[in-house]
C-alpha cells in the first residue's frame, strides 16, 4: 500500500511542471573532435545524481594533464547539478597536485535542454588549468532512461 501511495505521489509530481521524477540512468556524450567524453550517472527519484565509474577526458585541443585524464569517483566531483524535465546541467571538477604537478584542474560544464524530439541537446565548456590554461567549447547531447 505504501508503495502505491508513493508511486501516486511521484506520478502527481510529474504533473506538476518541473522535475522528471524517476530512477534511472543519465548520460552525456561529447565526441566532436575537440573532446571525447562519456559520462553516465544514476539519478534517483529525488533527482540526486550519483557518479558512475571511471571517467576519461581525451582532447586533441586541450593539453589535459596526465593525472586528470582518467578519473575515478573519488577524484571527480559533481560540484553542481540540475536535472528536470526541461534541462540537464552538470559541472564536474577535479584537481591534482603532487611533486611533479604544481597544480592542475579540470572543469567541465554541460548545459543541455530538451528539444522538440525529446532529446537533451546543448553545449559544453571544458576549462583546463595547468602548465597551459585552455578552454574548449562545443556541442553535447544527453540521455535519460
Amino acid at each position: 500500500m505504501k508503495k502505491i501511495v508513493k508511486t501516486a505521489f511521484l506520478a502527481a509530481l510529474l504533473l506538476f511542471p518541473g522535475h522528471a521524477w524517476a530512477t534511472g540512468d543519465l548520460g552525456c556524450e561529447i565526441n566532436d573532435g575537440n573532446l571525447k567524453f562519456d559520462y553516465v550517472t544514476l539519478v534517483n527519484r529525488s533527482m540526486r545524481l550519483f557518479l558512475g565509474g571511471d571517467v576519461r577526458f581525451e582532447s586533441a585541443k586541450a593539453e589535459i594533464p596526465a593525472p586528470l585524464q582518467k578519473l575515478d569517483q573519488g577524484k571527480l566531483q559533481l560540484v553542481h547539478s540540475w536535472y528536470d524535465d526541461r534541462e540537464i546541467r552538470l559541472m564536474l571538477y577535479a584537481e591534482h597536485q603532487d611533486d611533479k604537478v604544481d597544480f592542475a584542474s579540470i572543469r567541465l560544464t554541460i548545459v543541455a535542454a530538451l528539444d522538440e524530439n525529446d532529446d537533451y541537446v546543448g553545449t559544453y565548456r571544458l576549462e583546463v588549468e595547468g602548465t597551459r590554461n585552455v578552454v574548449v567549447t562545443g556541442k553535447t547531447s544527453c540521455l535519460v532512461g
Partner: protein
Amino acid sequence: MKRFVLLQFLFAVSLPSAAHATGNADCSIDEPGLNVTFEALYGYGGTGELRQNHASIALTDPKSPPGNWTFDLDGSALEQQWVVGDEFKVLLYKEHEGADMVLEIQARRTAPEDIAFDGTYRLIIGPSDGSLFSRAGKVACSMG
C-alpha cells in the same frame, strides 16, 4: 591597527590558489502560512558549491497536511544545486511526518555584481494518504 590590517591582507594573498575564501548564501520566504530560512557557505573563486547548508521550515498553512510542519533540514536534504554565475537553484528533499517534501528555490541576481537574488519557490508535499499539497511564491536570496 593599519599594520594589523596590512598583515592580514598579506596573509590572505599568500594563501595557495586552491584555498578559496567562503561566503554566506541565504534565502528566506516570509509569507502568511510559510516561513523558510536557508543558509549555507560557499567558496568563491573555486567551484562555488554550497556547503554546510541548513534550512528551517515553519509551514502553518491551514491546508497543510496533518502533523507538525515546523522542522529543520540538515545538509543531507540538499539534493541538487546550481549556484553558478547569476543563477541560484537549490532543491531540498526530506521525508517528514510520513510524507515526501520537496522545496525548490530558483532565483537570479537582481543586478550585475549585486549580492541580492530574487526568484520563486515551489513547495510540494505528498502525504501518506495520497493527496498532494503544493504552494508557490516568491523568495529572496543573497550571496555575500
